[in-house]
């Protein structure tokens, strides 16, 4: 087993991004993700890559567009208000079918909100976020180890489908320290194959065009329908989740990211009390793991959705379970973080009421 290193989540992302063969970072500071650009400013230079502290988030996302259009793995990170500023660029990138990685270390909102951990950017992340018909592949880590491993996965998915990918974490995951094992062989950027659409000099070949703009009658409709087919494939093939104790469960808690860690503690407490409770943790938020939920809803009467928001993922749970089960909710918005005992109380209330 490789040596484990104690690392901040934000630093684990940096190492994961570099190990994934990415050598381009552009970003603008915002709490609680400042350790990412801070560390990138050293690590990217060490690795012969590019680090740019831009004049704004809008500049950062558009530089990312350029770097990725040239065929390179490129990423940016920010936190909620900064990600809102980037939405125009993300829409353009999705419209141009370009793979990029955007990391959102979510903080309390709306507006400038606060700097505490939150999960209130779920809708923004899973419904496209900007204008137009598109989705962004969205991964939800829940440990420093995930933060190290998910950038590689995000780039692979983004490139496979030529689509932007998001990593949706929160202030707690960014600021927490945990052991990280460097679990895969770092990728040499030079070993990555050239993309057949990349703009890297057309000498000796046909010129290529990358754009999100087509005025020819019927052309955009055709493009969007083709993109919709891509989204159907992603929805079918890329749903990821983890489950604990679900086989014999009377109630399944559904939570992602930080909430899933806390919910996991509550589920263990419930099991110690003899309550048959399980946990389903979506790892991909888009595509949402609807298949497993549809299946579970045929035998499980009660689901408890736990989110650090007023309730956003709960909509996807309702859609996936198609009214076959009772959907309960426990939410802590505005930077509130639940503790295991309050989730346990809610579990007991639901199961008590069900008896």
């Amino acid at each position, binding site marked *: 087993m490789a040596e*484990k290193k*104690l690392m901040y989540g934000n630093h684990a992302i940096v190492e994961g991004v570099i190990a994934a063969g990415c050598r381009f970072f552009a970003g603008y500071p915002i*709490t*609680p993700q400042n350790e990412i650009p801070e560390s990138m400013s050293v690590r990217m230079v060490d690795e012969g890559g590019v680090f740019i502290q831009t004049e704004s988030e809008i500049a950062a996302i558009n530089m990312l567009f350029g770097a990725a259009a040239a065929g390179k793995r490129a990423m940016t990170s920010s936190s909620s208000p900064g990600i809102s500023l980037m939405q125009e660029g993300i829409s353009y990138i999705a419209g141009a079918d370009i793979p990029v990685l955007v990391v959102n270390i979510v903080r309390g909102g709306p507006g400038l909100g606060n700097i505490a951990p939150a999960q209130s950017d779920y809708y923004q992340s899973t419904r496209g976020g900007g204008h137009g018909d598109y989705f962004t592949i969205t991964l939800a880590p829940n440990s420093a180890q995930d933060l190290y491993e998910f950038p590689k996965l995000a780039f692979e998915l983004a490139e496979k489908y030529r689509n932007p990918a998001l990593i949706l974490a929160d202030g707690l995951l960014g600021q927490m*320290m*945990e*052991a990280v094992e460097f679990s895969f062989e770092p990728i040499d950027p030079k070993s990555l194959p050239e993309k057949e659409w990349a703009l890297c000099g057309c000498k000796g070949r046909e010129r290529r065009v990358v754009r999100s703009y087509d005025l020819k009658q019927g052309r955009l409709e055709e493009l969007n329908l083709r993109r919709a087919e891509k989204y159907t494939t992603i929805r079918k093939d890329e749903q990821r989740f983890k489950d604990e104790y679900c086989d014999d469960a009377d109630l399944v808690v559904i939570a992602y990211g930080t909430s899933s860690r806390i919910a996991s*503690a509550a589920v263990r407490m419930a099991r110690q009390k003899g309550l048959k409770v399980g946990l389903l943790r979506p790892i991909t938020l888009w595509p949402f793991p609807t298949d497993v939920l549809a299946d579970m809803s045929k035998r499980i009467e009660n689901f408890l959705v736990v989110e650090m928001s007023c309730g956003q993922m709960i909509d996807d749970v309702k859609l996936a379970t198609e009214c076959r089960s009772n959907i309960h909710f426990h939410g802590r918005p505005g930077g509130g973080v639940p*503790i*295991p005992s309050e989730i346990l109380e809610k579990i007991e209330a639901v199961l008590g009421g069900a008896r």
Partner: protein
Amino acid sequence: MTKEIIISGFGGQGIVSSGIILAHAGLIEDKHVTFFPSYGAEMRGGTANCSVVISSEPVASPIVATPDVVIIMNEPSLARFEMAVKPGGLLLYNQTLIKSKPKRKDITVMPIEANVLAEELGQGRIANMVMLGVFAKKTGLLSLRTLKNAQRKRYKKANDEQLALNDKALEKGYGLFGNSK
């Protein structure tokens, strides 16, 4: 085995460093660890606290609501965390700076003249290391040797003299209650 720990005091007392040293120490002893600091609008002289979980199992929640152990370095922290300690838990407090007396009867309360002892060693700012020494001894969770290794992982740029002084403070705390090893 899972131990949930909160360390609290004011900025500049080495609160965050103490938490990171404990996390390093847990990892050195092949345990699962999480460290989570209060972050954001913190400043020297303001309040600071952090949560550390050390466990033989993978850590589920990094959020500590009812700690097994609290290390309290200043007066406001005592008011904030005394009631949170798990019944039967342990409260270590810096008696030099805290004039109030803890009221709980269902937990073990240990006053430590952390700043006085640190000053005797020649440096008030290593009061946190004295407390960590006491922590290791009283909980039996980590060895003194592990803590000495762990502080070297935190203070990578410190000179040998400072590291040796930190070791002495750890030993001092460790030896306060029973024989030092």
